[in-house]
């Protein structure tokens, strides 16, 4: 099980920094930083810059996203913001608006 879970119905306003996997199903506004993976569930609404090892988005993210490894934008996911990652996948049915920097 993930180290940190922000469940549906919970909202955080502020900085969240972690050294473990973070699963967000609720609301987060501020900043999200972790050295591990971040998973944004379909019910999640994030208004924050996100920095992680890897990032999976099935919900809504508004903010710049940085991943050391990869970013996966899944079907139904919605991302408005710039992406900086070595790898990026955007699934069919996902919404995305922003620049991509793949560190070429």
């Amino acid at each position, binding site marked *: 099980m*993930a*180290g*940190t*879970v*922000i*469940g*549906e*119905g*919970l*909202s*955080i*306003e*502020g*900085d*969240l*920094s*972690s*050294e*473990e996997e*973070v699963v967000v199903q*609720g*609301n987060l506004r*501020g900043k999200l930083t*972790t050295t591990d993976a971040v998973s944004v569930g379909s019910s999640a609404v994030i208004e924050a810059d996100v920095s992680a090892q890897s990032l999976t988005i099935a919900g809504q993210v508004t903010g710049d996203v940085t991943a050391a490894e990869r970013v996966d934008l899944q079907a139904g996911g919605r991302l408005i913001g710039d992406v900086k990652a070595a790898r990026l996948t955007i699934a069919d049915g996902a919404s995305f608006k922003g620049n991509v920097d793949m560190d070429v």
Partner: protein
Amino acid sequence: MNGSVIGRGTVVRGNVRGSGSLEILGRVEGDVSVSGELVVGEEGAVRGSVSGTHITCSGAIQGDVRGSEAVLLERGARVVGDLTAPRIGVATGALVKGLVRTDGEPALGTPRRPAVAAARPIAFPARPAAPKVAEPREEVSDSEPPAKEPKAAREAPPPPVVPALAKGAKAKKKKRED
């Protein structure tokens, strides 16, 4: 499942609020307000006010704790702040520094009596006509003074006893010396 967890390696700087249960094993620097069960684990720490329905703490809280149902401090808990809940439990080995108050069921004697006395006259005039209003008031006033008079009569005997005055006088002298 609607449970949220702030893990050991996680620090939140800001406010956390919402529905569902929450388990804090990491650190929160801000207010926490949850409409469900709240658990602060052994290594969990909160710096800010905490509220929830049923709060169980075995970690550290620096701020006021308010439980709408209960607040339980387990062994090893460190709380600096006021505790308020209808039910409060503090285990041996828990540290508390602050005001502890069980709110809800037991009311203090002073606020209750006026509330009851006020409720009677209001309730009576609503049912019968105006003249009858005077009766309950008389009854209340009759019942109260006699209750006080015997008390006063019982209390009266002690003052005449001379030693009481002598003791008071001595005490005053001691205080002045100090």
